[in-house]
């Protein structure tokens, strides 16, 4: 049967040591099924929809296009790790709530993780830059207008109160 390996990863600040995984399991499935962090969504599972976007060592990546074994020794941030505490949202999440940045919410985890990296690299983007940044994230509700507004609003909020 399928080969297994033990991996150690840090997800949202929590270290998971020597977790045994089949070598062929994707990072996305590992996050959802083994760690129970179902905030990371799976849409297409071949790198098109962007719903499964996570940050790997601070850089956005599609977790359906990585094997869990490849994350061994690395640090991962999922949507569950964005808020500073259980009762407080991140300014990016607040901006999404206030600007109707989500409808069904399926694409939201990928939008948030993608934008978290983007706004860190580009704190004062133009609308066009935001649209290109989220071009790899599909919203089946077609709620892009609200998402773009939320991203621009979030940029403003994050500039006002840098983390």
């Amino acid at each position, binding site marked *: 049967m399928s080969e297994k390996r033990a991996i150690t990863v840090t997800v949202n600040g929590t270290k998971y040591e020597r977790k045994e995984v089949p070598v*062929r399991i994707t990072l996305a499935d590992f996050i959802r099924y083994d760690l129970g962090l179902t905030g990371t969504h799976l849409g297409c599972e071949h790198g098109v929809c962007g719903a499964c976007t996570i940050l790997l060592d601070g*850089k956005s990546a599609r977790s359906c296009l990585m*094997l869990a074994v490849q994350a061994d020794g690395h640090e991962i941030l999922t949507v569950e790790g964005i808020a500073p505490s259980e009762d407080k949202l991140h300014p990016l999440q607040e901006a999404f709530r206030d600007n109707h940045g989500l409808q069904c919410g399926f694409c939201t985890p990928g939008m948030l993780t993608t934008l978290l990296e983007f706004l860190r690299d580009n704190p004062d983007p133009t609308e066009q830059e935001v649209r290109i940044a989220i071009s790899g994230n599909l919203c089946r509700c077609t709620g892009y207008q609200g998402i773009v507004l939320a991203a621009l609003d979030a940029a403003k909020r994050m500039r006002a109160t840098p983390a």
Partner: protein
Amino acid sequence: MKPPPFQYHDPKTVAEAVGLLGTLDNAKLLAGGQSLMPMLNMRFVLPDHVIDLNRVDGLSYIKENGGTLEIGAMTRQRDVEFSDLVRAKCPLLHQAIMHIGHRQTRNRGTIGGSLCHLDPAAELVSVAMAMDATVVVSGPNGQREIKFADFPAGYLTPSIELNEIVTAVRLPLWPAGHKSAFVEFSRRHGDFAIVSAAALLAIDGGKIARASVTIGGVAVAPVRATDVEKQITGQAPSSDLFRKACESCRSIEAMSDIHASADYRQHLAAVLSRRALEKAAGLAENAPWNRKH
């Protein structure tokens, strides 16, 4: 579980990886995974062994060496995108990178992986063809170099042996001040190009001293439009000259698939090569197709 069962190997050196390739049957190399992982998830490929190159040391670098830009095979597309050296010395590469997928895929995707996957529409493959690149390959008998013109053996197939690994690509640099442009037609931002065109121009005393025009996405590998290059060399750049010369692209043998017919690809080849030349020569500032992003 999406991917089919396989054995996983994560060598730490090129020699180790070459050794594995030489002993294992039906093995696939995993670089950035932005093409192989979808193919595994959809079970288009069923390898018995996956050899992951992500833990091999020393394959990620960008350096200039006596007029040549050398990029390690495992250099992420994102690192190329943000390299000041690339932007200064090889603007065509920077221009092309901006058309590749999305931020999330460029963070993982590698230059060597893209060259070896050899998608007919891949931007990096076109750049390598346009720049007369050389591919550096390691095998059991050491290192050898392959001219990029000889690198594609067929559809998605590089002309390397089963026990060889691409370790770097070398791009001979054009003189400082040369002009370049990369344009493509795709249905949505980040999609595979239906057709792309790369243009390089060295202009001296108002005349084109040297030209390189490459069309991607029309055939199994990018094609150099040598007719166009010949017709415009020695001439003063103008939209009229480019339009006439690029008509010859309509006779490039083009493939037909679900995305576009051969006729349409030939049409795009003529239009996009002209646009790439115009853009490179600074004649497209106000063109309606030349939206800034």
